[in-house]
């Protein structure tokens, strides 16, 4: 019986080995594929000359700045809408009208208003991150055990204390889940904006590698972007389990 962990590795190893052997056998000359050994060499080279680290830094700064801004806005609005159902009902049409706009469609607007660079990218990432956090926070706050609210009333807590001491702790596991989903979205949107138009970060670097006809470098960037996405997701999932226990993962389908 082969252990599960090794089974998981067999497929990628087999694909890499076949690709390597095939590339050597036919002396591959291609603009889109490269043997894995060349990709690994390009990865090391890009790390050594620092270009990979600079690009990674730019992308992550934009993604996390956008996540913080969008997350703060989404959290505040979500809590407000969750506490005051009247407010929620009044804002329903407005929210449902703005939410389905694909974040990337704002790119040209952000481009003429803010120009190239961090600000434009952060704005778009923030817009994309507001919605999942707003919706999930609203649901989490609305789903708080009503007796906790009664307790806070009996204790005559001020509204600020009620939010700080009762509502946020009670809704925290689901709010963290919202942040994890939004972090994935932030990275995706940041890379997409860079690939589409913004000349900074990993997205721009992978486009440059493609235009320079360097498939090895391009695929090295692709691998690196995938690894960052995987590590971000796994890291947050581990944190979630560590902080809130297994119960926090119930109902997590995305």
């Amino acid at each position, binding site marked *: 019986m082969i252990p*599960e962990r090794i*089974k*998981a*590795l*067999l*497929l*990628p190893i087999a694909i890499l080995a076949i690709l390597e052997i095939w590339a050597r056998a036919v002396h591959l000359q291609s*603009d*889109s594929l490269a043997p894995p050994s060349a990709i690994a060499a390009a990865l090391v080279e890009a790390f050594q000359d620092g270009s990979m680290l600079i690009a990674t830094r730019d992308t992550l700064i934009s993604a996390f700045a956008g996540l913080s801004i969008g997350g703060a806005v989404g959290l505040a609005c979500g809590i407000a809408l969750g506490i005051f159902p009247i407010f929620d*009902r*009044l*804002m*329903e*049409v*407005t929210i*449902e*009208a*703005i939410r*389905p*706009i*694909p*974040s*990337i*469609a*704002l*790119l*040209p*607007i952000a*481009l*003429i*208003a803010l120009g190239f660079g961090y600000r434009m990218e952060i704005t778009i990432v923030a817009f994309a991150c507001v919605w999942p956090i707003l919706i999930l926070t609203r649901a989490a706050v609305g789903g708080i055990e009503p007796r906790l609210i009664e307790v806070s009333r009996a204790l005559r807590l001020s509204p600020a204390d009620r939010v700080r001491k009762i509502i946020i702790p009670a809704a925290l596991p689901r709010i963290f889940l919202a942040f994890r989903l939004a972090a*994935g979205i932030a*990275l*995706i949107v940041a*890379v*997409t904006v860079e*690939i*589409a*138009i913004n000349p900074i970060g*990993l*997205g721009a670097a*992978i*486009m440059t*590698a*493609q235009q320079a006809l360097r*498939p090895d470098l*391009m*695929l090295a*960037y*692709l691998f690196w*972007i*995938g690894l960052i*996405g*995987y590590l*971000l*997701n796994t890291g947050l999932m581990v944190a979630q389990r560590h902080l809130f226990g297994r119960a926090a993962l119930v109902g997590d*389908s*995305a």
Partner: protein
Amino acid sequence: MNRSVLYWRAASFAVAAGFVGSWQLIADQRLVSPVFLPGPDRAWASLVRGFTSGDLLDKLLGTLEHMAYGWFVASIAGIALGAMIGSSRRMRSYVAPSLEFLRPLPVSAVIPVAIAMFGLTQSMALFVIAFGAIWPMLLATIHGFAAVEPRLYEVARSLHMSRLAIIFKIALPSASPDILAGMRLSVTVALILSVVCEILAGLDGLGHWVLLSARAFRSADLFAGVILLGVIGYLTALAMSMVEKRLLKWRSSGH
């Protein structure tokens, strides 16, 4: 009860109208330069003009076409591959971890690879959209197949059903809620990737239209395009959730 829902809905529309009104006011007072922010009146006029005399309808159809083809290919491939992987425990333990590794990959990162392979063409867009839209469906199908009540498989075995019959009569219906949820997610992905591909490759569609409008500082046209994209996003999500409700009626109608 029903009446109060109606009142709330009306009040909610009034609030939204209030926002549009203040947008108009801001634009009229020129608090923001009209180069960046046209009023809703100008955006609406541009929308009407685009549909009656311009080529906005063609662009709209172009985007819908990219979305639909990519999503359709992804649906078929995703469900077929998912059924193949999900219905065999051995396949699951070998393939699923690799898929889990690929899942958080920002899909747009394959665009350069697709451009290197296909050039700036329609096939590039089709490949990217299908590749992006396949993930939610593929993973949902695998998950749905893996979560089928084991007793149903026992029943199938004692009835001597063939593997195909098991897939079509037991596993697919039982996994359909997961699959439909995956299909709904991938419509959104397909729309976003269509826009990105149109921006990059200059393919006929709304993505290209909004970019050109931005380059020429025609902000009214730009907002008209963005509003249309929002409408597409809203209507496709609405249609998917209606289809979902319709198809899954049997689940709530008792056993």
